[in-house]
């Protein structure tokens, strides 16, 4: 392509990153939010009660069981999720019997009010689940099409990560270089730091993202080698499941779940409990599984206790057997999803995800910054391509966060009894994104950046306020009730708003600075001009040294 390998890879990195950069930005941002999808869903269902402190697990289990005996009498398999750090409400879930012609029945999930034992009716909302599903399933498109688009983009991301490493010989030195207020070089350094600081994460998240649909993307290979029956055996070997517990169709009386729980409590010697699953309920073969931690591949048999629900005896469990490659595969899944993460690890995941998002954003901005001086000199104004990239940058990098804020606004402001309400929440989000993508066409780039940054600041800072006006689950109440999950959510909005306000302020300050500096050079004494010129030359030389790796290579080889 170019004269040498590294130079070709530099070209490749630029274009691979650019063509789907905005989709990747969308995937990274919604994916990062996914680490908090339960918390988001809880915020988006404000009818749910506040946290209840100091309720014993036994009482919670009794409440859930009474609820289930009222609402899910004929169901033979159900789960109880106890209040935890991520979701402070009591939740029960089961699957309805399958309708004829369908493989599985509808999944029902309800919040139970701990005090009254009643079902909590919440507004219809897509919640955090819809938001995080967008990062691999997009929206509006059919599942299959989305998977292939996402696969294509992820592949390009993987290429961008690998080529990004290849083109950086001095990856360690570059990491400690930051030339602020130098325009292009500043952006390059930011891009480098953001990339290197979380490089293992970027690689892991991209590669594991591809692994999720390994058998869809590489279907040709498996089709060439094995039949459909063998394929399902292969899947069973890679994703082993615990044996299905079948009912014997002999009715029997179960012990209370809270009584059975004593077995688990005695085994663990603590009163931690995350969830309970009941198999073959009210049958001779009934079993109850108590789980105290989300385990994933860090599978620890001690985190689960299986109890015979009729006799109350502990049933010894057989650990799942993974093949080596299956272990690697599932390990990547766990790392990607981070289900095992506690609060601190979850925040780290979230921030690393945001670093990835910022890395993509800085790369996109770098593309325009590099071409700006040349484009601005053109007699007919900048090229169409340049304008397009610039507008997409403004409309996505600042526009998408605003669009996500409108998703939350829609949740609070759309009428509660509206038809297709949850669909419209997402529609509102995409309509506002579209508007923000179109808006920069009619404004000069500088002003569009600044105005959208200001809008973003306003949108996020006003969210807690709207929350106060529309619901009783607002910041003040949640602080009084010490419901940190909800309170942290509103406070995060404020912090994000402040970040946007700060960048809007900074952006304005930089613009003003440039305007002031130019006349100073013009009217300054000759000597100053000379010095400036020298400085500029020096800058340019540095510039070349870093940007034209070709030259650097020639020097080295």
């Amino acid at each position, binding site marked *: *392509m170019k004269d040498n390998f590294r130079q070709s*890879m530099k070209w490749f990195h630029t274009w691979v990153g650019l063509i789907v950069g905005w989709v990747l930005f969308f995937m990274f941002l919604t994916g990062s939010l996914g680490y908090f999808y339960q918390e988001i869903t809880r915020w988006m269902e404000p009818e749910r009660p506040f946290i209840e402190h100091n309720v014993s697990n036994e009482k919670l289990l009794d409440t859930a069981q009474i609820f289930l005996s009222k609402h899910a009498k004929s169901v033979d398999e159900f789960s109880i999720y106890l209040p935890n750090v991520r979701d402070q409400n009591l939740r029960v879930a089961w699957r309805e019997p399958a309708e004829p012609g369908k493989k599985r029945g509808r999944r029902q999930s309800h919040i139970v009010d701990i005090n009254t034992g009643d079902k909590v009716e919440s507004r219809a909302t897509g919640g955090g689940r819809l938001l995080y599903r967008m990062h691999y399933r997009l929206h509006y498109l059919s599942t299959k099409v989305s998977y292939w688009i996402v696969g294509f983009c992820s592949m390009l991301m993987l290429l961008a990560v690998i080529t990004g490493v290849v083109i950086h010989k001095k990856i360690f030195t570059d990491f400690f270089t930051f030339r602020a207020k130098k325009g292009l070089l500043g952006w390059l350094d930011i891009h480098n730091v953001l990339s290197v600081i979380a490089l293992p994460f970027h690689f892991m998240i991209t590669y594991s993202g591809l692994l999720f649909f390994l058998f869809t993307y590489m279907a*040709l*290979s*498996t089709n060439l080698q094995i039949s459909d029956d063998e394929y399902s055996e*292969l899947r069973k070997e890679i994703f082993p499941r615990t044996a299905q517990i079948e009912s014997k169709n002999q009715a029997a009386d179960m012990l209370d779940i809270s009584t059975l729980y004593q077995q688990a409590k005695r085994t663990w010697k603590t009163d931690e409990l995350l969830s309970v699953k009941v198999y073959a309920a009210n049958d001779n073969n009934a079993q109850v599984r108590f789980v105290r931690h989300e385990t994933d591949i860090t599978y620890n048999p001690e985190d689960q206790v299986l109890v015979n629900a009729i006799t109350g005896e502990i049933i010894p469990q057989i650990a799942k057997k993974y*093949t080596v*490659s299956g272990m*690697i595969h599932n390990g990547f899944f766990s790392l990607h999803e981070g289900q095992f993460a506690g609060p601190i690890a979850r925040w780290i995941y979230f921030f690393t995800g945001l670093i990835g998002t910022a890395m993509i954003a800085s790369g996109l901005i770098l593309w325009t910054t590099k071409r700006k001086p040349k484009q601005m000199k053109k007699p007919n104004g900048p090229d169409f391509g340049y304008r397009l990239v610039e507008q997409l940058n403004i409309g996505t990098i600042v526009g998408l966060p605003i669009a996500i804020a409108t998703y939350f606004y829609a949740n609070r402001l759309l009428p509660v009894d509206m038809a297709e309400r949850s669909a419209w929440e997402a529609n509102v989000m995409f309509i506002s994104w579209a508007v923000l993508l179109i808006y920069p066409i009619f404004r000069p780039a500088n002003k569009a950046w600044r105005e959208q940054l200001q809008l973003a600041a306003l949108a996020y800072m006003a969210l807690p306020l709207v929350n106060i006006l529309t619901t009783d689950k607002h910041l003040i109440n949640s602080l009084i009730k010490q419901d940190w999950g909800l309170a942290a959510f509103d406070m995060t909005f404020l912090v994000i708003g402040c970040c946007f306000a700060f960048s809007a302020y900074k952006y304005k300050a930089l613009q003003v600075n440039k305007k002031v500096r130019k006349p100073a050079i013009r009217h300054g004494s000759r000597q100053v001009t000379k010095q400036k010129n020298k400085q500029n030359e020096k800058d340019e030389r540095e510039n070349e040294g870093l940007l034209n790796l070709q030259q650097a290579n020639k020097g080295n080889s």
Partner: protein
Amino acid sequence: MEFLVSYFINCFNFSSPRWAVFSRSLVAIFGGYALATSCSLFISQLLLNSVGKYQAIHIGLLFSFLVYACAAMWVFSVLNATKAWIDIIKANVFFAVATWLLMQFTGANS
């Protein structure tokens, strides 16, 4: 074979740089995919007797994305698009033949 390929490519006027990039993209996407597949077949035949059929296939697949990435990088680093086509086709043929040979050796029937 190389002659045929270069003749075929010369039919289109690939002298324009845009066509060259387009041509390279085609090799990277489809040739790379073919290479990822043939390489995964090769790896699974190679490991067939030591780790069992299903795991061998799985390991082959786990490597496929990395092979795909390397192929794409290769395509965009060689001198011209014609060479990229030829190289990727060569590599594909190599893995196909090697897989076939291994199959004779391992006695796999698929």
